[in-house]
């Protein structure tokens, strides 16, 4: 620590956010722990370690955008908050890959639903994949604390907009189980701009919770800094070389940081952590790197109603249909139904218009009735035996190869049918499946048309905001990338703390699981310091 550069002595004593434009000269930084990424995983680990008295540095590739910089306009905020402006697609071009890239990560644009990991999923991970030390007993204290920190509570009645009321009513009519969804919010004004970042600091993202708490305890957060290379020596990471990004051009500025630390924590998120390790040339040493990749692809059905729905106001996922969270198979192993969470959709006009499979005047006719357009969305629980792989594109960025296997296709078809069934039950006059085939349904008599709908990449318009896997946790380097201590196999001081350690998707929104796992990661990191 004595070699710490003088110019940063002050910064070390008092935590702060350092932005790229302040970094005009290459320099070395020292800390006990260097965290790469500031989303639900990185911010939580940083907060836990900083509060325990450790000297923590967080590097974030994206910019620091405080609420005062938010204007709630879709494209502007998408550009500020999202990696590659949400224009990255899977290798087949069929699914848009959504992730955060800003201080606070994806939590700044997420929907704030905060489910505890279902016990069946924790058991699956433990029994099939060897994920030890992450059972309900271990994680519950973390969730209990997070519930207070993030003010997590079930959505109350006034936070159910018309579409959420209809979703609940439809589920009740059809006998499908569902509940008010736990929300991480405080003083929500129902703006409906969760995906554009909350100006009102009501959504309890990492930007307004764990990041400032970590800073209060001395953590230094470097925005506009991209991790480039781990400098390694026999199973030890000695330092990290990082590039400062000129935010205005979104290109390296030429300034470099060298971070020396006793422990390094990779928390770049499900789309970026495995590719970072792939760029370090670790594929041979870690054959599972990039494997078991899931992304909760979504399928949407838009509905036209006789009443105003106003899909863009109030909170998005107030009510969730959990009846179909797990896929059901018959005794012979054939798929029956399920494998998704069903929610009310909430999208602003740009995203809604982009997901409309119509052109010209037909598109105009629908969009001219936007207040009366409702819709539902399903998060697919990617089947464990049909997961994809993260590879590297030629420019070193993530390349998602995702198979959309037969079970996944069956799940997609089933959820489209269920979404249509529910929306007709609550009064939709006409439905439109969000996909290139522009399947339009005028009544329940049209439901059989769904059976003939081609399910294929680029056929359904899908987005995937919940990546998982790529650095999965398990027993050894033969079956995984990280061990139960979150340590990368073969390294003494390199850890992973984000959704990439999950062997399969969580089957619910992953943010609360990521945070609870990060509590466990922080404990293991503390033990080695």
């Amino acid at each position: 620590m004595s070699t710490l550069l003088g110019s940063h002595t002050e910064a070390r004593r008092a935590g702060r956010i350092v932005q790229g434009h302040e970094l005009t000269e290459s320099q070395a930084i020292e800390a006990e722990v260097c965290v790469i990424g500031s989303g639900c995983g990185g911010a939580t680990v940083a907060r836990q370690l900083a509060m325990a008295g450790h000297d923590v540095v967080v590097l974030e590739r994206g910019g620091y955008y405080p609420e005062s910089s938010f204007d709630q306009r879709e494209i502007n905020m998408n550009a500020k908050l999202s990696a590659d402006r949400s224009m990255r697609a899977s290798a087949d071009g069929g699914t848009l890959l959504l992730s955060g890239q800003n201080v606070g990560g994806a939590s700044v644009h997420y929907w704030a639903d905060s489910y505890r990991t279902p016990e069946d999923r924790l058991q699956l991970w433990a029994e099939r994949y060897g994920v030890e030390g992450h059972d309900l007993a271990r994680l519950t204290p973390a969730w209990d604390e997070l519930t207070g920190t993030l003010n997590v509570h079930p959505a109350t009645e006034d936070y159910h907009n018309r579409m959420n009321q209809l979703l609940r009513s439809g589920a009740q009519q059809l006998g499908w189980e569902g509940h008010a969804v736990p929300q991480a919010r405080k003083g929500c004004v129902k703006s409906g701009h969760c995906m554009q970042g909350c100006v009102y600091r009501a959504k309890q993202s990492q930007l307004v919770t764990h990041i400032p708490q970590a800073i209060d305890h001395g953590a230094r957060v470097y925005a506009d800094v991209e991790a480039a290379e781990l400098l390694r020596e026999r199973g030890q990471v000695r330092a990290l070389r990082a590039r400062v990004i000129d935010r205005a051009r979104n290109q390296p500025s030429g300034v470099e940081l060298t971070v020396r630390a006793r422990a390094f924590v990779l928390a770049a998120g499900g789309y970026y952590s495995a590719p970072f390790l792939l760029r370090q040339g670790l594929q041979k040493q870690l054959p599972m790197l990039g494997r078991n990749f899931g992304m909760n692809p979504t399928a949407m059905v838009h509905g036209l109603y006789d009443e105003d729905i106003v899909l863009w106001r109030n909170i998005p996922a107030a009510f969730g249909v959990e009846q179909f969270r797990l896929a059901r198979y018959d005794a012979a192993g054939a798929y029956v139904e399920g494998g998704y969470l069903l929610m009310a959709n909430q999208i602003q006009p740009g995203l809604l218009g982009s997901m409309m499979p119509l052109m010209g005047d037909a598109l105009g006719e629908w969009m001219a009735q936007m207040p009366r357009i409702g819709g539902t969305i399903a998060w697919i629980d990617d089947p464990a035996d049909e997961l994809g792989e993260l590879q590297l594109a030629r420019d070193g960025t993530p390349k998602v190869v995702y198979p959309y296997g037969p079970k996944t296709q069956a799940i997609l078809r089933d959820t489209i049918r269920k979404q249509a069934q529910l929306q007709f039950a609550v009064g939709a006059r006409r439905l439109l499946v969000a996909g290139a085939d522009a399947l339009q349904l005028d009544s329940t008599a049209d439901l059989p048309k769904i059976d003939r709908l081609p399910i294929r990449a680029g056929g359904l318009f899908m987005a995937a905001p919940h990546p998982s896997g790529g650095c999965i946790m398990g027993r050894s380097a033969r079956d995984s990338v990280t061990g139960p201590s979150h340590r990368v196999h073969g390294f003494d001081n390199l850890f992973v703390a984000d959704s990439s350690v999950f062997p399969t998707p969580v089957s619910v929104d992953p943010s609360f699981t990521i945070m609870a796992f990060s509590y466990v990661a922080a404990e293991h990191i503390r033990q080695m310091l």
Partner: protein
Amino acid sequence: MIEQDGAGLRGDGAGTTASGMSGLHWHGLSRRRFIRGLALLPTAVGGSFVLGACSEPQRRWRDGRALLALSVAQAQTLEAVARAALPAGGGFPDVDEAQVVRRFDEELSFVSESIRGDLQAALGVLEYVPSLYGHFGRFSALGGDAQRAVLDALCGSRVELLRAIGSNVRILVQFFYFAHPATWAATGYDGPFGHLPERLSEQRRWYAERTGASA
């Protein structure tokens, strides 16, 4: 009329697959190499679509400002897609008023090279693909109905790459259009909550300056 997808573009198994979505195999040809190969095809017969990005002395769009990511030819194709895909009349604004091409160029200026390259190449394919569907002429020179028919055929193609090209370009065009304030009155959208003033990021200001918006 050539059968949908055209025999020459079919992958292994003529586009029919056991598993539906991922069964196409291009004998090791990557997606990017494939679409770039398609995009370069017209240059071999006298076109200059893809190379146009570097060979044109003035990459200036109709609004008088420079283009940073798109060539003029690519911008023209994109504009044609926008005019075909987006509503005309009914109170909806024109593609120019909603600044679709301008915003596309701006967004593309800040994304990873692999994404920018794919989308530039996709526009190249779009411009020259109509002949595969029985339309003689470049996409931007076709009438609106023919353009919509080509887009429909692409989006519904059995060839994964063609679907990706058609769908992704269309999705982005529609996103930039309906997110523009000029369209909101026609949709009944009452604007962002609280009607906050627009707050330009460093990147928006940089792009505006580099393209001469402030002039």
